[in-house]
């Protein structure tokens, strides 16, 4: 059984009056998911500006399609589906693929005065944005957003085995970009030391 809405589920869902569909539970759920969804949008697009546009569109679509959300199913998966589809249908096609790294560097203005944190965020985002889209997507869905393999497979339209395979490759590539290596390669006793050392090395 699908955990996210399929066309079939939509057709069989009981239609209720529009005003009753956006229950308090639905609205509360939506609001609760917003900040994590924004993290997904920023990491996906590499830009705060694009992310907030995406988020706005997703919010509007979710709101007007509240009757297609089945209560009790995973709202996060549902929202990620909408947001990701919006991104690929609108933003990728228009060629807006350039990462807005400046926007992320300048986010230090909005965050606590921890300069290192915003530089690290920008560096990490640069690495993320270098991944192939299908690799980055599975990392963001499974590794960061906590979606299941099954949900992710359904959203991406591929087999679960393909998701696992992509996840493995994505992690390997990201580790490579971040300079995270096997501790034994560096002659050190722990990976945490290795991470610290590679970060300070630039």
């Amino acid at each position, binding site marked *: 059984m699908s955990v996210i809405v399929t066309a079939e589920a939509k057709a069989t869902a009981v239609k209720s009056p529009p005003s009753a569909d956006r229950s308090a539970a639905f609205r509360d759920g939506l609001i609760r998911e917003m900040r994590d969804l924004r*993290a997904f949008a920023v990491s996906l697009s590499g830009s705060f500006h694009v992310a907030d546009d995406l988020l*706005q569109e997703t919010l509007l679509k979710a709101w007007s399609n509240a009757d297609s959300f089945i209560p009790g199913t995973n709202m996060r998966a549902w929202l990620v589906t909408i947001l990701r589809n919006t991104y690929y249908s609108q933003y990728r096609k228009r060629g807006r693929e350039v990462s807005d790294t400046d926007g992320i560097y300048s986010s230090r203005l909005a*965050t606590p005065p921890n300069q290192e944190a915003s530089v690290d965020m920008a560096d990490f985002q640069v690495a993320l944005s270098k991944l192939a889209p299908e690799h980055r997507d599975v990392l963001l869905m499974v*590794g960061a957003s906590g979606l299941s393999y099954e949900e992710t497979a359904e959203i991406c339209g591929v087999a679960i085995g393909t*998701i696992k395979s992509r996840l493995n*490759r994505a992690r390997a590539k990201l580790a490579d970009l971040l300079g995270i290596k*096997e501790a034994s390669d560096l002659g050190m006793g722990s*990976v945490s030391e290795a991470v610290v050392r590679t970060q300070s090395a630039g």
Partner: protein
Amino acid sequence: MSGAFRQSSAHAPDSSSLEDEDGQEGGANLSPLVVEAVGKALQAHFRAISDMPLPDRLLVLLAELEARERNSDS
């Protein structure tokens, strides 16, 4: 010098061109520690963004939608 060159523990050759159905290999044999380190870095990145307050434009939009909802209910 004897034994100067030793094979590292047997890792399967990198079959990065294959995408097998059960996804066991996926083209890389990643150390669990590396998997953990990547996961933590990713989650820290995510958390740094989700800890930020939502921008005003989204809060305003939410408020407008809520207001419309209340009006249509009455």
